[in-house]
């Protein structure tokens, strides 16, 4: 929730003393509060329990995935149900790079992102040929192809998968300093490192998406959503922006996947490319909080965390309930909890609307 971009710098004084403003007094206060929250989260491992740290790893990774889906679907119009392709690939590249090539996990994570981005770049042009809703199923097919190919990859256990050997994480960069700093055992220190990584990724993702949504590119994409013909006539090359967005989100999703599987330390094709784990939950978060808002998924992920805590033990019933809640939300509060609240109360912590002000 960092609000790095200074609203005043974006405003341009036009004729008659009018200027375009995005930020508000409230958004500046929210940014300061958010900065404090982030600092608090950074130092949290010094006193929090290991269980809370692990819970927050789940919250941050899900939030990052939800934000990435949100920007693809909400801004890019690329409604996908196949993001598990990039999560799974990220995980598999991490395993391949550390187990087979002996790379340090921290080095393997960016590599996983690059690989996922490469796959996104290659498969994107093919998927973009599919019209609107068929794009969604096409992305699912790609995820299945990735799952089946990874299941054929025998060095990492084929269909049954494999575990990350202890030696990989035992000598991980940064482990010793963190152990000394917090005076904890190695497994706890590993959790803390993963926790910080997810925190960095989620904060960077949110900041980048906010900057994108407020940028000229974000505005251009919003315009293509309103009218493709009109936006093309003023020179917006929507296709290029979408393709770029798709690749960048692929990279980020791959990075998240690599971090998730560094934490899980066990991978199998069915889990790594699971549509329930990496798409259903993500859609739930976005729908509950509010698609096309940046605050929405934050609300959504906290709600999912609470539901998970109390109901996950019920297995199928829990998932059935999540599905029903999502359907009811779409019918009665299509803008989600945050989206509806923000509209009724006119409260926007991360405003995107450009307003005219006389200076």
């Amino acid at each position, binding site marked *: 929730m960092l609000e790095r971009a200074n609203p005043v710098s974006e405003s341009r004084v036009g004729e008659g003393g009018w200027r375009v403003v995005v930020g508000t007094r409230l958004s500046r206060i929210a940014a300061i509060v958010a900065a404090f929250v982030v600092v608090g989260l950074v130092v949290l491992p010094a006193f929090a329990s290991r269980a809370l740290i692990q819970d927050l790893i789940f919250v941050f990774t899900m939030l990052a995935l939800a934000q990435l889906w949100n920007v693809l679907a909400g801004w890019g119009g690329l409604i996908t149900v196949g993001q598990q392709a990039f999560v799974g690939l990220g995980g598999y590249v991490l395993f391949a790079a550390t187990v087979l090539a002996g790379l340090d996990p921290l080095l393997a994570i960016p590599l996983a992102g690059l690989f996922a981005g490469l796959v996104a770049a290659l498969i994107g042009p093919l998927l973009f040929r599919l019209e609107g809703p*068929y794009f969604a199923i096409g992305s699912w097919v790609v995820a299945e192809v990735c799952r089946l*190919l990874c299941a054929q990859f025998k060095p990492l256990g084929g269909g049954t998968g494999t575990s990350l050997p202890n030696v990989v994480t035992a000598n991980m960069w940064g482990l010793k300093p963190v152990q000394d700093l917090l005076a904890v055992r190695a497994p706890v220190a590993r959790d803390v490192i993963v926790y910080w990584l997810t925190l960095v990724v989620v904060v960077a993702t949110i900041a980048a998406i906010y900057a994108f949504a407020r940028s000229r590119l974000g505005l251009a994409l919003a315009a293509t959503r309103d009218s493709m013909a009109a936006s093309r006539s003023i020179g917006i090359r929507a296709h290029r922006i979408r393709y770029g967005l798709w690749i960048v989100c692929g990279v980020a999703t791959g990075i998240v996947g690599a971090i998730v599987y560094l934490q899980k330390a066990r991978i199998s094709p069915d889990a790594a490319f699971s549509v329930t784990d990496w798409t259903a939950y993500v859609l739930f978060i976005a729908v509950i909080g509010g698609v096309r808002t940046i605050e929405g998924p934050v609300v959504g992920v906290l709600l999912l965390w609470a539901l998970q805590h109390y109901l996950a033990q019920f297995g199928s019933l829990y998932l059935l309930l*999540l*599905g029903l809640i*999502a*359907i009811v939300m779409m019918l009665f509060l299509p803008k989600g909890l945050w989206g509806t609240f923000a509209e009724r109360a006119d409260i926007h912590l991360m405003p995107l609307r450009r307003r005219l002000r006389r200076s």
Partner: protein
Amino acid sequence: MAVIDTLVQGALLGGVYALFALGLSLIFGVMRLVNLAHGDFIVLAAFIVLVGATSFGLSLPVATLIAVVAMFCLGFALQRLVLEAVLGEDIMPPLLITFGLSIVIQNGLLLGFGADSRRLDAGAFETRSLEVVQGLNVGLAPLLALIVAIAVILLLQLLFYRTALGRAFRATSDNPEIAQLMGIDHRNIYAVAVGISLAVSVIAAVAFGIRANFDPAIGPARLLYAFEAVIIGGLGSLWGTLAGGMVLGIAQTVGARIDPEWQILAGHLAFLLVLFLQPRGLFPARRA
């Protein structure tokens, strides 16, 4: 002979895939809606027939008929009570709702029936086969599935091009506003389309339920096959969809011959290849 046998078996499998695809293609054609729960509705239909046949002791045809009526009503109600509210310019809400339905149906079936694999019992019929020529046997059940697929396509063609309802479908598909001006209630037209789509799903469910096992989790895979058949065949053409199903079936059978683990993957790769070479499908409708 092995080559011909593979092609024939694949083409017959294509009949089932075409049946999967028809319902998906139908509602996309009429209302631009893609039902992400389509595969799960097929599995739901299979379980309804199973319950009718085992718990109520009905014969398979009777149980199928009852399921057809039940699924038609379910589809009609689904459109009027749920989907209608979110259908519009924005394609996201209907996609998210049908994705939610997919999760609900899968987990509902899992709660009701457990994760065990089931099969519809068609008696001796399912194993009987015809020797077409020396060394080439064709199973009666797969053959019937293909014949049924062709029959369903013929019926849908008749419905579309020879009846008042079909005219209403085409008119609403072309322009819902003008169709309304002509006195067509598009809401009921859409509801009937979803109803027919789910009714056809029952036929698909029975055709595949007597030749392969099913369990609550396999819905999404059926959706993907249906989708691939539609795209390979080309949007807007029912015969194209049948051909697309056959291409998919043949690709899978050839893949399975090479290595059983490659069956599904080969089908997906064939789909991606067609998308790469012929993005509008192999047999696109002239009108589209």
